[in-house]
């Protein structure tokens, strides 16, 4: 067991973890933060995406011990301080960018990193940027719209409907 101290959504937490404990398990089982979901075993689906020091990371592909000292942000930390939905979350609701909700935390976290990197993406850039996140419900149409809307662009693809 190794003691790991991490800042999660702005709060410092310390836990003893095994060397093999994945960040996704650390968040879900260690901290009880079950918003981060596990949808595959091969780092393909993206449901578990969180931010580590601002970068989007599939939390099933990194050990908890490897984030010692880092700042981790999860879906639980994405709302505004007053509890209202953040801009990206609100855009997903406004544009029906989610159905069953299972891929949604990963989609939101990937979107946040995507827009931080490229604040005014084109539709093609959004689709490319979401390539590591699988959604089985929406056919991506409304997710792409939500991301474009969250970027604040007056985008024809959003305005059309």
């Amino acid at each position, binding site marked *: 067991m190794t003691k790991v101290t991490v800042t999660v959504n702005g709060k410092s937490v310390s836990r003893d973890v095994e060397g093999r404990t994945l960040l996704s398990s650390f968040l879900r089982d260690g901290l009880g933060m079950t918003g981060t979901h596990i949808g595959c075993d091969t780092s393909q689906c993206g449901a578990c995406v969180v931010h580590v020091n601002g970068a989007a990371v599939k939390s099933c592909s990194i050990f908890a011990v490897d984030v010692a000292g880092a700042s981790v942000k999860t879906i639980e930390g994405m709302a505004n301080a007053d509890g209202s939905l953040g801009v990206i979350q609100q855009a997903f*609701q406004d544009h029906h960018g989610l159905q069953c909700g299972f891929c949604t935390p990963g989609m939101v976290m990937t979107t946040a990193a995507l827009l931080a990197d490229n604040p005014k993406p084109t539709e093609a850039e959004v689709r490319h940027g979401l390539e590591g996140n699988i959604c089985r419900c929406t056919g*991506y149409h409304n997710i792409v719209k939500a991301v474009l809307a969250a970027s604040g662009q007056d985008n024809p693809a959003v305005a059309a*409907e």
Partner: protein
Amino acid sequence: MPKDSGIGASSKRREDVRFLTGRGRYTADIQLHGQTYAAFARSTHAHARIVSIDTSAAEAMEGVLAVFTGADFAAVGGNPAGWLIQSRNGEAMKEPKRPVLAHGKVRHVGDAYAAVIAETVEIARNAVEALEVEFEELPAIVDMAAAVADSTNRVHDEIADNICYDWGWIEDNRAAVDAAFKAAPHVTSLKLINNRLVPNAMEPRASIGVYDPGTEDYKLYTTSQNPHLTRLLIAAFVMGIPEHKLNVIAPDVGGGFGSKIYHYGEEALVLAASRRIGRPVKWVADRSEAFLTDAHGRDHVTTIELATDKQGNFLALRTETLANVGAYLSNFATVTPTFLHGTLMAGPYKTPLVYVNVKTVFTNTAPVDAYRGAGRPEATYSIERVVDKMCRELGLDPVAVRRQNFIQPDQFPYQTPVGLVYDTGNYGATLDKLMTLGNVSGFEARRAKSAANGKLRGFGLSTWVEACGIAPSALVGALGARVGLYDAATVRVNPTGNISVMVGAHSHGQGHETVFAQIVADKLGIPEANIDIVHGDTSKIPFGMGSYGSRSLAVCGSAMDRALDKVIAKGKKIAAHMLEAAEGDIVFEDGKFSVTGTDKAKTFGEIAFSAYVPHNYPLETLEPGLEETAFYDPANFTYPAGAYGCEVEVDPDTGRVEVVSFTCADDFGNVMNPMIVEGQVHGGVAQGIGQALLEGCTYDDNGQLLSGSYMDYTMPRADDLPMYTVDHSCITPCTHNPLGVKGCGEAGAIGSPPAVVNAVIDALQRGGMTKITHIDMPLTPSRVWAAINA
């Protein structure tokens, strides 16, 4: 002006807030005090006899609490088929036992033959590795034609030809159909494969069993589209638990698409294990287990023939299908290739004579059952592909041919030759809408532009009808169903006037919590925010048959509507007493009970309060309280229909297909929430494009699953798909349910695959490759390239 609340409004989904903030509560998120973990030993052989299982080393491991094998369940019942199909020679279908854990033989890779319960997941998995098992390997039965031909090798020892049933529909019409083919001026034949798919809900299956030794009650948290059916199957068939001692809870469920309708052995195992060890037992599938054991979909091999005159008028249609059912009968495996497939073979057309033959075949593969559309995509694909092929053979316009064969609006209700009576429709209207929306007349200019870029552009069309709102109980009972397919709802008006509605439908992405509340709000004239929709808990809900077959609104929504009628009727009695008026003079409008022609009125809230504080109340004739339940059994199926158009660009150098536009003109009857309806179509179309171009579940000759992860099975991703153009303005309301709704959940997956394939064939034909008349799905670059370069 679009409405901002109630029926027809694109109300934002209330469930989104918890999903967007990480506060959804899926089964895997639930942690119970004293929880233990189950892991399953799964066969790596497709077909083998279990010679021996030595559990002693596993049982001796620290932290292991129990080990189960098939022998532990030999005495209990099996997981039954939900529908009995009769073969065309009058024989009953074969129904082999489906045990909780394999006993005697394993029959597919992934078949569970033992389970370990331990203090942690890691210990449980390590203990599975410590099981000492001897198998006698048998030849794998994978190919359906070979399975039928070789009677010496059997998936189930007692079933000689590996055939579950050999079904003819409608047998009495067979001779007339054959005669029509003999006399026909033209016959088009096509052999096609409807590729096997894995549903791939993003949430893997999970179950937690909890036994309370004090009360002898069982509780099961599980990823189900259908908690009441799961309870019924476990209680009455699999484990013999009294139904009133078992509570099944399906909390937030991360998608289903059919795969979570059924009861699976893991659910029974965690309950039995919890009883044995006296602690909760949790199992969460990983994605590999999902690929190996979730019920797969489709997997038909079909020969379809269409008889026409030289003008393309349909004279008769005939099909022969081998349908793969896998190693065991999943709960609705037998009805999917028969009554959800053969009965749709008329499509939207007035084909006078149709005959369908389906042989359902056991193989050493995972069970196959209903997947989004369930039988109807297979029917639609066969029909729409053969119609297109016929048009090419006769040099006819595929748009005009479809139009001339449509059932006309004045012919409804329409009795098809395959048993269904379509209540209403206007297939010409949706086709017209598609031609406009998709700017089909501008296709030639777009094609020329693509050609200038070295790409082959094609347009593909699909016009289709489906049967939803499953289903009239008496009818399905006569056809072999072992269940009724009504639904139920309880409307509980609380003393302060807000409302809890307990519904039998289950939402796993469809947004019922929002849409059902819209309907209640509209009907009672109270704000949506004052209404809660409760689903997914058998201890709270009167009964229900769950969500699948685009049935939630059409069947359960109708039950809710009836219950609301009862609430209003009782409210009128209370209002009449309070307002000292005759009951017949009370009208209910905009949330108020008023005496007609006067300004005397009571609000809904005042009536509710009076019902629970009955100080001024007709107690001698009326019970206090305001809570009503209705069960609704539909009079008929509903028949959504539509016209879908797809444009593709094919790169002739690589064979890569890009869907450049996809347009849907649907008739769903009345639409309750346009935003949600459009989202349902988007998702269905994506799954249909996935089937057409990307997805293929593949076993090798030894029965090993080659496509067992997201690195091998191609899920559609954001950059594989276009924006869709979706329209639902053509409306012929359902004539037999109170909301006039037809259902929209499966349409996209039903209508889209043939449109995509027709578009690719069109592109290749226009590119001069006139010998290419068919390519089997998925149309991967290698398959298209191979066809181009054959």
